[in-house]
């Protein structure tokens, strides 16, 4: 059991954070419905940041079309639920398959390239998906929006909150277990030094594609939740700005930590909402602040929150040893 705890990286602060999130909707002001909506939006981004970091933080592949894959999962799930009257609980899982397959195809094409080229290619894929969602009006209703059934019949946000919290945890758990496995070792190796990985007998393309498929599948799964939470989909959910939001949060959380994005998401999405509402007469300014913040983090705290946490833990250890 101890071993399993270590493998999933469960620590006391991690446990406390989990309990904190579990209890949060019961304390004012977080028990208000509109604040719960914010929290859910934050957890969607947090869960996405985990999946984003799974590629970005380990195999050094920045999926700049991330929200395109997310949206593909969302639309697939919504359309299956509408056309075939399937339960959304089922369709969010089937919906995750289409971004996984697209991840396989685009991965085979792009992942033999170098980092910057992959970024451009995935960006293009994301833009193309958004373009398709806009143009295929007969299927997606374009920018009119596609109404779709919701997961619960209630108007309360509480069950959704716990659902996305659970999904975020599952995303973390699965990805952490993969990272701790034989595969994870190869992922990290490829991210750090591709040539050396090759001279260790690893075919980087194969491992990168496997990683990419998994990340895209989870993106689509979380996208499915998005669809059946908001109950309406518009193509702009796949926009580059939305991907940037996920990227920023993954980076602030700390590349290669997985958990960092989940922790960063709630405070950061809140802060951004506040800034957005304060600066509501200057649209776009919040994106500039995003950009500046990201540059600041990359320059001065390249390890993000996770690095800061590691340093504090290391310091406490040293103190502990000094006391004995």
């Amino acid at each position, binding site marked *: 059991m101890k071993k399993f705890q270590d493998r999933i990286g469960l620590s006391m602060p991690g446990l406390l954070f989990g309990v904190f999130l579990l209890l949060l909707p019961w304390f004012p002001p977080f028990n208000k419905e509109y604040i719960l909506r914010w929290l859910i939006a934050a957890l969607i981004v947090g869960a996405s940041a985990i999946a984003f970091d799974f590629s970005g933080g380990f195999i050094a592949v920045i999926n700049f079309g991330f929200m395109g894959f997310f949206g593909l999962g969302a639309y697939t799930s919504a359309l299956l639920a509408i056309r075939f009257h399937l339960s959304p609980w089922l369709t969010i899982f089937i919906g995750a398959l289409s971004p996984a397959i697209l991840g396989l195809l685009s991965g085979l094409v792009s992942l033999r390239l170098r980092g910057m080229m992959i970024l451009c290619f995935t960006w293009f894929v994301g833009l193309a998906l958004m373009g398709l969602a806009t143009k295929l009006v007969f299927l997606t209703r374009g920018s009119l929006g596609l109404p779709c059934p919701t997961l619960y019949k209630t108007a309360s946000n509480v069950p959704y909150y716990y659902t996305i919290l659970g999904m975020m945890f599952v995303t973390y758990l699965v990805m952490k277990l993969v990272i701790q496995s*034989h595969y994870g*070792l*190869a992922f*990290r*190796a490829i991210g*750090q*030094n591709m*040539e*050396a*990985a*090759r*001279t*260790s*007998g*690893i*075919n*980087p393309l194969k491992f990168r594609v496997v990683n990419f498929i998994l990340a895209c599948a989870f993106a689509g799964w979380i996208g499915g939740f998005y669809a059946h939470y908001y109950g309406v989909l518009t193509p702009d959910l796949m926009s580059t700005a939305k991907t940037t939001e996920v990227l920023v949060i993954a980076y602030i959380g700390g590349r290669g930590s997985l958990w960092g994005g989940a922790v960063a998401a709630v405070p950061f999405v809140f802060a951004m909402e506040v800034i957005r509402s304060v600066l509501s007469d200057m649209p776009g300014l919040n994106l500039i602040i995003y950009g500046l913040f990201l540059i600041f983090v990359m320059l001065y705290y390249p390890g993000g929150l996770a690095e800061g946490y590691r340093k504090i833990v290391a310091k406490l250890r040293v103190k502990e040893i000094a006391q004995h």
Partner: protein
Amino acid sequence: MLEVNNLNTCYDFLHVLWDVSLVINEGEYVCLIGPNGAGKSTVLKSIAGLIEIKSGEIFFKGISIGDKKGDQICRMGISLVSEEMNLFTGMTVMENLSMGAYTIRGKKKKEALMNFVFELFPRLAERRIQLAGTLSGGERKMLAIGRSLMSDPSLLLVDEPSLGLAPRVVDTVFQALEVLNKKGVTIFLVEQNVTKTLQVVDRGYVLERGKIVLEGSRVELSRNEHIRKIYLGV
């Protein structure tokens, strides 16, 4: 064991290797010496499949490997040791070694290989959980060699192991290579430290401006006028 015929290699438009041919027999300890920029590292990278070759043939144990990729070549038993390419600086010593053994199946065999590496380099054993990026220059070289050994290679390509090392550490590294060769590993060594190299190898080649200009046994090379003047400085 290894046969290279008329190998030509280019970096884009820069033609670096010109009709390089060489042979290495099983169990031999062979060196490749030459001035900076001659193309020595390029020879090793071509054999290890890290760069595409333009023309020529490379045979390993009778199989043509000229068009194979680095990962396939590694699995066939050729391992390249070069500092720039061998370490995962953000991983611990243990993780680096595990990566070296990635293609090895069987826990027992991996453990045996790891024990062998730690026997060869006791300093690494003391630093199991240290990040490779924080090791000293000598320790990095040891780890780079250790990591290569973890794939249980039959041919070890070693690129300038003495570069930037203190003389005492150079001795450690050279001793380790000799131990390996005695154990049956074939070694192809690229070195700048010619004096030391010609004390240990069986045979050698001299590469200048991308061409093999000289070859011979250790004794022949040590006595050669050109070598004595240019490389040994006597």
